[in-house]
């Protein structure tokens, strides 16, 4: 298979304009003849569904939650980047592009990332027009803050609830289109399969999560905006319903899966404190603007942090990376925290934590000022840990947070299945091997508001789409496969719960395919996952029945897919014989323990093709071509 990314030719800065001009248009009156399915109502899906409906397309929108307003995007805290240069500090489209490419450790496409930087400003304009209450200065203009991996202040925010406010903006636009009759909303539905007719994506089989009914929905194109797969690790900062099912079904139907081993471990999360724990809580990266990260100088120093004098503290990020300090990118910050804890310098009962200290910021700016910036985060921290960060440094540890890998898409955001588009965290396109803070919100909204409305028209204008009905055989057989699988899960009646399996899988992935990996561990992980998977299908216990609201059954289906997908992550990690960004193989590191890329052999996207049950997936390669930036060893010193 030849992977054609369809990056337009010409100078980088002109590619998108040129492409938009070259894309064929659909006349306004004809748009209403097309039906589009959008799965997911996060930033990507909400923005896409609303924008497509505004253009005149008939949209069917699906989500798992009881309302589109609750998609996982709601939890994003820190902010969204845009190269507005409102601060006059030297920002530009080029700088945002460059920071993102470099932050991704040179494993993303220049063309896509440049477009992202280009439309970033439009996103802020759009959101402000919708009434998103971004933080402002006294003069009434928008405020900014800095985020990791950048030396300019380009992050827009709404207290610590940026994702919530952006999502509610998209949700309001979506609600307007629902009221206008242009979007049909299907909440509490889970996509169980993708339906192809003549090789084109033409519909879905979904389960109604209230009644258990299996429903069929047809359309002219399908847009997946189903988020990331961080929950493969069981413990992550993602919402509980985040899953890989939709993506994995598409993969099984022929869409290639790109860079599945590129996962992001976020440095500032509340540490694990018990085996019952169901998820981890992120403390926004914005805290690193004012909080200083440290551990005790000496191994085994168990004094309480206020008893440890300045001279006995090691501000290891400031020491090792003087120019970026506490604002190094996430992968670097996480790995360094792990390194300190591995040395035995970790804080707290478990020793798996480092301090994030606001003492100096509070004495510099006052408690009020710090409270204004981070009040709700401090409050959340206190609710969970019963410690007050105004008085005692926070304890933090890295946790799985985001997944850069995803379904392979071309410049039009179309997968290798014609008519199947993939947006937001669900695709792989813009963040390379490591995502910079405040850029997922940017990408989700860029894809949904400003890319898909153009590229889907190009697809429709150039494609023959025969009439279909949902009673035809392709739908019938997909629906049967879904019911069979449900029955199978319910009939095993074994001895272990779904969560029990999920927790074990998460443990394996965290141990062997987490912050640091090596060949031996990865090889072992593969076997462990295989045997866990076979045990699952013999020994899982799923109570209840199919025609009912059955949350155990929902989880069982998702975990079954994670058990397959987890192996794909490991396979990809083993195949990438280098370290880059979030993929750190201990066998490939510099003398200073930084990731050591191999640009000669691995400057590519690894895209995997499903080869059937029990068979190894087939590897395909999209070489990455850098015409505008020079590949360098990433340095944040």
């Amino acid at each position, binding site marked *: 298979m030849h992977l054609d990314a369809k990056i337009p030719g010409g100078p980088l800065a002109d590619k998108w304009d040129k492409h938009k001009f070259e894309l064929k248009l659909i006349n306004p009156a004809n748009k209403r003849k097309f039906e589009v399915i959008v799965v997911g109502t996060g930033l990507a899906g909400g923005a896409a569904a609303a924008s497509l409906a505004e253009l005149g397309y008939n949209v069917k929108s699906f989500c798992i939650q009881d309302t589109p307003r609750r998609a996982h995007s709601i939890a994003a805290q820190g902010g969204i980047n845009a190269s507005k240069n409102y601060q006059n500090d030297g920002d530009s489209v080029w700088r945002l592009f460059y920071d993102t490419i470099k932050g991704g450790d040179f494993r993303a496409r220049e063309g896509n990332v440049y477009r992202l930087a280009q439309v970033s400003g439009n996103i802020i304009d759009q959101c402000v027009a919708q009434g998103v209450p971004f933080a402002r200065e006294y003069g009434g203009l928008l405020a900014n803050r800095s985020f990791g991996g950048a030396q300019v202040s380009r992050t827009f925010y709404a207290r610590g609830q940026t994702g919530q406010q952006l999502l509610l903006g998209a949700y309001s636009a979506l609600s*307007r289109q629902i009221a206008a009759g242009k979007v049909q909303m299907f909440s509490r539905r889970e996509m169980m399969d993708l339906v192809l007719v003549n090789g084109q994506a033409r519909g879905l089989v979904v389960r109604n999560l209230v009644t258990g009914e299996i429903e069929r929905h047809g359309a002219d194109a399908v847009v997946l905006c189903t988020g990331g797969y961080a929950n493969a690790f069981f413990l992550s900062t993602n919402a509980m319903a985040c899953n890989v099912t939709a993506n994995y079904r598409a993969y099984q139907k022929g869409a290639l899966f790109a860079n599945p081993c590129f996962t992001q471990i976020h440095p500032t999360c509340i540490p694990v404190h018990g085996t019952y724990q*169901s998820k981890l809580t992120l403390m926004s990266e914005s805290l690193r603007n004012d909080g200083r990260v440290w551990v005790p100088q000496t191994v085994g120093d168990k004094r309480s942090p206020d008893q440890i004098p300045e001279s006995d503290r090691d501000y290891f990020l400031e020491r090792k990376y003087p120019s970026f300090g506490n604002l190094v990118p996430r992968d670097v910050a996480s790995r360094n925290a792990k390194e300190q804890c591995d040395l035995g310098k970790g804080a707290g009962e478990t020793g798996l934590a480092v301090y994030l200290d606001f003492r100096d910021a509070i004495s510099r700016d006052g408690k009020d000022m710090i409270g204004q910036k981070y009040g709700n985060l401090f409050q959340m921290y206190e609710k969970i840990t019963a410690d007050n960060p105004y008085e005692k440094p926070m304890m933090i540890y890295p946790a799985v947070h985001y997944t850069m890998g995803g379904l392979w898409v071309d410049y039009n955001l179309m997968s290798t299945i014609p008519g199947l588009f993939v947006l937001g965290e669900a695709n792989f396109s813009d963040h390379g091997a490591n995502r910079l803070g405040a850029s997922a919100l940017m990408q989700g909204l860029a894809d949904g508001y400003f890319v898909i409305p153009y590229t889907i028209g190009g697809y429709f204008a150039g494609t023959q789409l025969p009439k279909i009905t949902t009673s035809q055989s392709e739908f019938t057989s997909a629906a049967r496969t879904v019911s069979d699988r449900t029955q199978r899960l319910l009939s095993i009646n074994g001895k272990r719960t779904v969560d029990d399996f999920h927790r074990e899988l998460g443990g394996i992935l965290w141990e062997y395919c987490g912050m640091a990996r090596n060949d031996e561990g990865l090889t072992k992980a593969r076997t462990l996952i295989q045997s866990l998977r076979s045990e699952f299908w013999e020994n899982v216990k799923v109570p209840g029945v199919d025609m009912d609201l059955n949350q155990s059954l929902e989880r069982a289906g998702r975990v079954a897919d994670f058990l397959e997908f987890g192996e794909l992550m490991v396979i990809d990690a083993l195949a990438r014989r280098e370290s880059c960004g979030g993929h750190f193989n201990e066998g490939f590191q510099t003398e200073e323990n930084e990731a050591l890329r191999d640009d000669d052999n691995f400057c590519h996207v690894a895209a995997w093709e499903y080869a059937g049950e029990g068979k190894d997936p087939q590897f395909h390669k999209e070489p990455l071509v850098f015409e505008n930036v020079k590949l360098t060893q990433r340095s944040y010193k």
Partner: protein
Amino acid sequence: MTKTINLTLKVWRQQSATIKGGFETYHASNISTDMSFLEMLDVVNEQLTLDCREPIAFDHDCREGICGQCGSVINGRPHGPEKGTTLCQLHMRHFNDGDTIAIEPFRAKAFKVLKDLVVDRSALDKIIQAGGYVSVNTGGTPDANAIPVPKEIAEKAMDAAACIGCGACVASCPNASAMLFVGAKVSQLALLPQGKPEAARRVTFMVQTMDELGFGNCSNERECEAECPKEISITNIARMNREFFKAGLFSSTR
């Protein structure tokens, strides 16, 4: 400090919207006080599953207090006893060894129970669809800094916009009114210059829809404000009433 406690739970079980429900008693043993309330329910559910009984259905997703999907009535109080806290952020350290805890779904005419603690809150979406937005299409918007907003106004709008749409205000209100929820959205957009052109239509249609969907009236009980996990202030209801009054006086919408 971590310790463990034992609890007796009286949980509302209801097979479906049409089948009558009732309380059942369960024991939750060795519950770490560091657990969240939902993690405690997870533990109970794991045991129920192993005992071949159906686990308790409850809604949740983010478990960070932001998505608004969780929420049950705990000992008579939506989201439980802690002020300004969603159920997922309520930790077991606020309970004592030996406590009996009653857990029921949010109840309101407009919220149908779907199963156990899971309710249908789609009526709240319908209210937003009636006008909880600024009518702008994607593209063609002015530069973000072309619309200055005084900081104080932006902060007030943000206070109102913090609503997570959980419906606890409705569940806590003796009249099952949605005034706090609606007031929050109306206020956010009425405060901001972007929302002003449609202010009259918005408040008129949203209030009308709220009435049609079977939510009750506000009789100033202030229960909503006391139970709201995001501490949305009832000044938003007052602002909505003013907006509603203005709309009636000056607009041709009605």
